[in-house]
């Protein structure tokens, strides 16, 4: 029991110490992104994944910290589970360790490492502007959803107006008994066929 208490004490001390170690640039990002608890925006979604043909969709989304996004829109919409703007909130609300990798004027490269097992992300590489706090590129390794690369474009707001997400996705397979007879090339399941998925998201912030 003593050992467990000691271990937990060391862990919590280490965790708080590591938080204190975060430099000013990361602290600024945490201030900008972790404190934004709710975002309302209109998103235009274009999905390009081999084996899927999905028309462009415009949806209105309410992101609230720790909750599943609330989506309003016409028809069926596929909303990415990871890589959207709520990802920033999720990243900077997690106890993390930040390592500076590169610096090029105002542009900084950092590697973030999650310090808790319960977070959905494990590590993240981000490139951001230290003055505007805008994150231009991120590569996030998640526990469940693989690696998601994102490139963000900005106008003035600290949240992007356009994001391009790329990720590896299992090739879509329909169980054989559901395959339509016009499927000329019956593609039998073959292990974990991975294809690259690309999603282009265009944001219009309602409470901007």
């Amino acid at each position, binding site marked *: 029991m003593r050992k467990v208490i000691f271990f937990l004490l060391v862990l919590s001390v280490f965790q708080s110490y590591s938080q204190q170690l975060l430099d000013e640039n990361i602290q600024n990002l945490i201030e900008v992104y972790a404190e934004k608890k709710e975002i309302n925006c209109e998103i235009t979604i274009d999905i390009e994944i*081999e*084996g*899927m*043909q*999905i*028309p462009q969709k415009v*949806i209105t989304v309410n992101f609230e910290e720790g909750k*599943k*996004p609330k*989506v309003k*829109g*016409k*028809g*069926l*919409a*596929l*909303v*990415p*589970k*990871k890589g959207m703007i709520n990802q920033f909130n999720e990243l900077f609300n997690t106890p993390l360790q930040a390592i500076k990798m590169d610096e090029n004027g105002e542009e900084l490269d950092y590697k973030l490492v999650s310090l808790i097992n319960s977070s959905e992300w494990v590590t993240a590489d981000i490139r951001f502007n230290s003055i505007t706090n805008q994150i231009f590129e991120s590569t996030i390794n998640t526990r*469940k*959803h693989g690696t998601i690369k994102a490139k963000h474009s900005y106008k003035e707001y600290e949240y992007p107006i356009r994001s391009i997400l790329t*990720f590896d*996705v*299992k090739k*879509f*397979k*329909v*169980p054989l008994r*559901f*395959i*339509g*007879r*016009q*499927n*000329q*090339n*019956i593609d039998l399941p073959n292990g974990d066929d991975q294809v690259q*998925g690309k999603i282009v998201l265009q944001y219009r912030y309602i409470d901007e």
Partner: protein
Amino acid sequence: MIRLVQIELIKLFRSTRTYLTFGITLVLMLIIDLGLYSDGDELFNYLLQSINDYFYLEGNLVNGYLISYLALNTLWVHIPTLIVIVTAHIFSSEFEQGTIRLLLTQSASRGECLMAKFICMILYVICFMIVVALSALIPSVMIFGTGDVPVFIDGIQFIQESSFLSRFWKTLMFSTIAMVAFSSLAMAFAIWFRNTLTAVLVVLGLLIVLTLLQTFVFGIFSSWQPFLFSYHIAKWQLFFMSDIPMPSIWNSVYYLIGMTFICYVVTYIKFNKMNISE
């Protein structure tokens, strides 16, 4: 000619089997609606599980349009079966009931008699397809509402709600042409065998065998596909692709119209040469 068609229609709509086929269609559609009402969400979550790993699927997935699309899958076997039971009977009933001699002693020529039956067959197929369309669409939309339709052709395609109805009606028009062609084959066999049951069995046997051959696409049968009528009948699915391949559909329309014409000519020759005392 109009009088002859009217007589044929009276005979058709006084037959119990005509109403039975309509009744069975309604029951079929009801079963599809009930089945998807109870298990639809589970079924589609299973089908879309690989998508669910990466996306939240928002919106009304199991909707009336999706169910109507699924109901169209009865075009593979159920609808052709019900249709040929009636259409083969239009031609062979005269032999079975012994009224063929009476029919051929009328002032109308054999060609006119055959044409009247042929027109009656087309009208029945049109009526039947309208019943299929309305029974597939109206109850499901009333119960489940409308929405986008995920279609499993070459992967997955999401058909937008706004374009669904035009695709649905085009599918039914195409299928009507296909069912007329299939019924023409039944007509030819009905005149040949002079028996409804034999004609129905032969035509359905052909449909099953050709569909099986068509399914073996990765074997030697792939080059035969364009010659199989089952291949062309199945083209209704293409109306639910994101980009509808119209040239391919038109090819099938020409094939099916040609097939109807050939069946009609063969039946006409056989019927004209038929000895009245046979």
